């Protein structure tokens, strides 16, 4: 019967055909057999796909990974996390500062303040040595005449539903006479040093209304917000830190176009263009203007003291000729978009974001959505081409799948999970690297709640938890104790600060001295209320969930009752964290090398939707945080960060638990290739730099055909 035979034959033939394909596929050992190109190809895996390949628009890890290879910034960080010139060869930071005449103020001798008087008194005081030494002042001050300027200010008002209303107000600003100071180094205390001349409270009660004149009538709400902005529009004492960059000559973009100062200015302007909705605006907003002095020199003048601003120049520089108004108009017309789309067309809509052209070590070849991004080395890179010919970032959403691909040789790097680390450490096929991640895990207490108001109480709660055991059993030893708000592998962290001891008896003593007495049920009680609160965390992170249980149990032992609950991330953020409506949370922070902790610890950042959601408030800490972001000297910054670290440690607004280690596993055949003086290749073992990053020398990496012995 034909039907019967067909019914049996077709599935069999089909399956045999499918299975024979197995014999054509390479295995781990035979990766390069008949396919030598594999040795010059590096394949990485990423959980998520990139979103937008543009250094001023991207905000996710996968995009940043690609963007950092395709684009290059003026600066980057070297092995020791110091700034290093890339597209810039040198840079210097100087300061221009301006002191306005305050006509309502009187000098200590009762004399009225006028321009010539002010100038004369300052010059005399400097000569007579009445004013403390002015560091970096190599030029005498100048008196600048009064002037006038027109400008527009936009004010964002939020209505009850949180919807924004943007109001633009034209202003006429009369700038009074002012004394200008020129310094070769930034001095945040400049105006304080003038107190002997100016007398106290020169800057309070500056009559802004007399100098700033709105050109339109505005309603009360707008007026109130506008008035708050006056000190920004016309600061009575203005610091203008200035960076002068000398740019590298002869650098080319991947399309052969030569890089120059115009690209730097363009990149800045693109970030500040409101149409582009760049997430980088906060880093560049303090810039007053960018001046091109010559094709390879740029001067950046800042509106105010903000030392982290220089780090922003590690961001990749865009090629102006491909994205300027003319190029975008051309693209818009070529693509035949609808009228509606033409109107909103901007850099965000450009095809450039999917076919980026930069000046980095690798040039973009292809992007297959949710599959891979392919880069190839840039032969004309100014430091010479990389060893690897091709770079792939594969998108593999499952960690399990990533590991499987790693073990078949279809991925070169794998980030081992804590429980897998031991297995890989003992496997001779692979090389592994463990280092501290820029992150820590903590229990945050809502400092606003009376229960947690006292640092002593928070310390006692921290002492009840055995963190060493958590590290050993919960994260399989892949973590280190941390005592404060900075990453342990930066200079900002003070290693001399000792973690809280594990001392449940001591914790009980502290609580008892605060009036908490053990009741008959075994709970601490004060004024008829037991010590009880809710500890919450987000769903989807098993380690945090376990931490919660461990803390609950540890506290139970000292008579503290914690009720635990897990919420979905969006609910967790919107209903509890952002509104400040919680008792205690288990969470973690990921950090950068920036010493600026304003958003997380300054008391002004404790409102709804802000990051100081625990409501930490310590005036001395606020002061130091502001000083840190205004300090341009690294050593002084370090002193301040150590003090900040100590103060926060003493206050224990969080119980700092541990900083996780991250472990990366590589094929042992991948090595560092160094060219010896005689052109001979030398192979070296890959090593991590101070920050724990192993890819710092990535351009020297290559895969060998054999496993080398080191």
């Amino acid at each position, binding site marked *: 019967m034909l*039907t019967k035979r067909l019914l049996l034959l077709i599935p069999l033939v089909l399956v045999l055909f499918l299975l024979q394909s197995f014999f054509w596929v390479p295995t781990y050992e035979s990766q390069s057999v008949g396919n030598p190109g594999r040795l010059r190809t590096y394949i990485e895996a990423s959980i998520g796909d990139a979103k*937008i390949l543009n250094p001023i628009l991207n905000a996710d890890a996968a995009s940043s990974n690609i963007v950092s290879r395709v684009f290059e910034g003026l600066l980057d960080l070297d092995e020791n996390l110091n700034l290093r010139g890339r597209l810039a060869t040198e840079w210097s930071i100087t300061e221009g500062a301006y002191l306005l005449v305050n006509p309502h103020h009187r000098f200590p001798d009762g004399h009225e303040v006028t321009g010539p008087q002010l100038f004369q008194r300052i010059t005399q005081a400097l000569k007579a040595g009445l004013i403390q030494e002015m560091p970096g002042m190599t030029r005498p001050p100048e008196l600048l005449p009064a002037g006038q300027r027109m400008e527009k200010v936009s004010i964002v008002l939020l209505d009850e539903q949180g919807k*924004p209303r943007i109001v633009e107000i034209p202003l006429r600003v009369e700038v009074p006479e002012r004394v200008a100071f020129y310094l070769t180094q930034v001095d945040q205390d400049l105006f304080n040093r003038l107190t002997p001349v100016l007398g106290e409270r020169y800057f309070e009660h500056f009559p802004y209304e007399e100098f700033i004149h709105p050109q339109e009538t505005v309603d009360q709400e707008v007026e109130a917000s506008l008035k708050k902005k006056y000190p920004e529009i016309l600061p009575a004492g203005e610091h203008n830190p200035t960076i002068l960059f000398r740019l590298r000559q002869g650098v080319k973009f991947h399309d052969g176009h030569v890089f120059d100062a115009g690209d730097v200015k363009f990149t800045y302007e693109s970030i500040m263009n409101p149409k582009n909705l760049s*997430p980088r605006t906060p880093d560049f907003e303090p810039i007053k203007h960018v001046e091109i002095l010559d094709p390879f020199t740029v001067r950046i003048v800042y509106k105010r003291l903000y030392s982290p601003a220089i780090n922003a120049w590690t961001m990749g520089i865009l090629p102006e000729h491909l994205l300027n108004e003319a190029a975008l108009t051309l693209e818009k017309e070529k693509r035949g978009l609808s009228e509606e789309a033409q109107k909103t067309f901007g850099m965000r809509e450009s095809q450039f974001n999917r076919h980026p052209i930069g000046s980095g070590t690798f040039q973009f070849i292809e992007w297959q959505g949710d599959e891979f991004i392919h880069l190839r080395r840039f032969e004309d890179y100014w430091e010479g081409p990389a060893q690897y010919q091709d770079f792939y970032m594969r998108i593999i959403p499952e960690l399990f799948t990533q590991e499987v691909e790693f073990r078949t040789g279809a991925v070169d790097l794998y980030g081992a999970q804590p429980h897998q680390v031991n297995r890989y450490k003992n496997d001779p096929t692979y090389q592994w690297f463990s280092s501290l991640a820029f992150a820590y895990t903590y229990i945050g207490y809502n400092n606003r709640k009376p229960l947690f108001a006292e640092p002593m109480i928070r310390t006692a709660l921290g002492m009840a938890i055995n963190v060493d055991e958590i590290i050993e059993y919960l994260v399989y030893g892949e973590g280190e104790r941390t005592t404060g708000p900075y990453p342990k592998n930066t200079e900002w962290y003070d290693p001399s600060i000792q973690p809280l001891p594990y001392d449940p008896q001591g914790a009980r003593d502290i609580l008892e001295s605060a009036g908490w007495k053990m009741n008959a049920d075994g709970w601490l009680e004060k004024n008829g209320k037991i010590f009880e609160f809710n500890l919450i965390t987000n769903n989807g992170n098993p380690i945090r969930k376990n931490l919660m249980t461990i803390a609950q149990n540890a506290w139970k032992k000292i008579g503290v009752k914690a009720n635990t609950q897990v919420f979905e991330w969006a609910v967790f953020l919107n209903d509890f964290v952002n509104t400040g409506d919680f008792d205690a949370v288990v969470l973690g922070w990921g950090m950068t090398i920036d010493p600026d902790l304003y958003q997380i610890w300054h008391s002004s950042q404790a409102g709804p939707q802000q990051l100081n959601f625990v409501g930490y408030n310590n005036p001395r800490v606020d002061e130091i945080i502001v000083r840190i972001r205004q300090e341009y000297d690294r050593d002084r910054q370090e002193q301040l960060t150590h003090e900040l670290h100590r103060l926060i440690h003493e206050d224990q607004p969080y119980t700092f638990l541990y900083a996780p280690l991250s472990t990366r596993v590589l094929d042992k055949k991948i090595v560092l290739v160094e060219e010896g003086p005689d052109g001979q290749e030398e192979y070296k073992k890959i090593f991590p730099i101070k920050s724990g990053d192993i890819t710092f020398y990535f351009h020297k990496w290559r895969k060998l055909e054999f496993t080398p012995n080191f």
Partner: protein
Amino acid sequence: MWNFIIRNVAQRLILLVIVSFLAHSFIHLAPGEPSEVDPMNPRMKPEDIAKIRAAFHLDDPLYMQYVYWVRDLATGELKSFKDSQPVLPKIWDRFLNSLPLFILATILIWTWAFPTGIYGAVHRGGAYDRLTVFSSYALISVPGFFLSFLAILWVVGWFGVPVISIKTFGMEHAEPIYQAMDRVWHLVIPSIMAAIGGIAILSRYVRSQMLEVLGQDYVRTARAKGLKEDTVIYGHALGNALLPFVTMFGLLLPGLIGGSVIFEQIFAWPGLGRLAFEAILARDFPIIMTLNFIVAVLTLLGTLLSDILYAVVDPRIRLH
């Protein structure tokens, strides 16, 4: 017949509008925001977030957002929140990736389910029948993703070959035949995994249909005529047992999107299912809405198709 089709299409169009409107409301009811708005970025000010939200119309009333969506979809201007890429070309690319997996899995299901089911029905109660009944229930009960993980571990552990994604990486310079076979190999495991559950279920249907038909009078008559057993089964019985399966063909269509989410996710297959899954995680409303709309269209089209097919193959049914 034409009357029937026109009336049905009209009904389904109305249904489509209702379904898409409901879906739109449900999606927006779910907690969470498009991830382009990154609330944990410490440098993001409330004003910046507000501006981005305004650009995506996130603060407009729901019905206005629906109108925007319909308008943008109709003009082809609809863009993903995630990467600002037009939605329709994106879906089309992914559709082309999903298609081979879907076709191969479907072919495997239909070619394997019939022999398995028929043999079981003919030798009812025998060792083979009991074995297939047991294994079908086992395969239906074990989740597909679990079996997939086991299969991946087994193949990788024993044979050391890549099985993930649509091809092996780093093979761009190899001979074309190697590359072609490599692509076939990468189809094998995910399509078998996607087919196993289908085979188990469909072979059960085939078995019970065959059993029912084999008990019919005309089969007894055929046997009484002295026809060969094979002729009775494959000539007389099979044709009639097939009737209900014709209608199932129409219902296959929506499976194009929904059927493979898990397998595409596990095997890192850049297809439609994964697109949908990732869009949901990122709250990428335009993509979710459009895919949902396409599923609705395919489902309605599928049911229409099966109604018509039924009338075509079964002369007892007339459409009015």
